[in-house]
């Protein structure tokens, strides 16, 4: 059956894992780096310490997972937002390519950036 081979369950799994990981991790990260440090609510960590944390393989692995899953989470949700919110389902092929293609490209970029930090 065609349906059993549909990629939908896999992209949904990526979307869901992405949803969970981002829900757990992103609020605190965004709060610290996007709001608290810039506004001086908390002192920003100094470069040496942060570089040591960032270059740690475990950190990089976690960040890589976070980036990939978050991007696929975006891709899936954004695709449906365009379908439903803007009623663009008739353009589903280009939309699908744009969203998941974007996630793949983003993941590659993330890999490059993160490897550079190693």
């Amino acid at each position: 059956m065609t349906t059993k081979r549909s990629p939908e369950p896999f992209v949904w799994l990526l979307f869901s894992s992405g949803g969970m990981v981002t829900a757990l991790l992103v609020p605190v990260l965004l709060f610290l780096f996007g709001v608290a440090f810039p506004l001086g609510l908390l002192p920003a960590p100094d470069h040496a310490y942060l570089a040591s944390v960032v270059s740690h393989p475990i950190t990089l692995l976690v960040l890589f997972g976070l980036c990939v899953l978050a991007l696929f989470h975006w891709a899936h949700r954004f695709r449906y937002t365009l379908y439903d919110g803007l009623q663009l389902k008739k353009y589903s092929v280009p939309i699908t390519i744009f969203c998941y293609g974007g996630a793949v490209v983003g993941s590659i970029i993330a890999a490059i950036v993160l490897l550079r930090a190693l």
Partner: protein
Amino acid sequence: MSTGNAVGGEPPLYRPPVSLTWWLRNPSYLLFVLRELSCVFIAWFVVYLLMLVYAVSSGRAAYQEFLDLSANPLVVILNVIALAFVVLHAVTWFGLAPKAMVLRLGALRVPPTVILAAHYGAWLVVSAIVAWVILR
């Protein structure tokens, strides 16, 4: 079972049009659309995070440049909005989790409130660990 209803010269059905702004019709639809839009801010966060890592791995000066950029009022405003959306995402995500999950302990079904509480607990613990690692 099939139905015997056949079509003939029947009076036309009225098909109500779906407006492009259907999601403004009711507050919960609006909330739904906002929730879905949170994904855009998650994508922004990935970009922001990669900029940070890139800066940190490029040396002290680049890191400082990043800090300056992040203190730009426009960027701060963007991040505050993004934070709001990300929190909306987290709250709705945890709120829906008990629906998909049915856990059993022996004969007892774990009540949805417990599952919900567990998610919030995990959120708290993860956030604490991340903050501890960064701020130590």
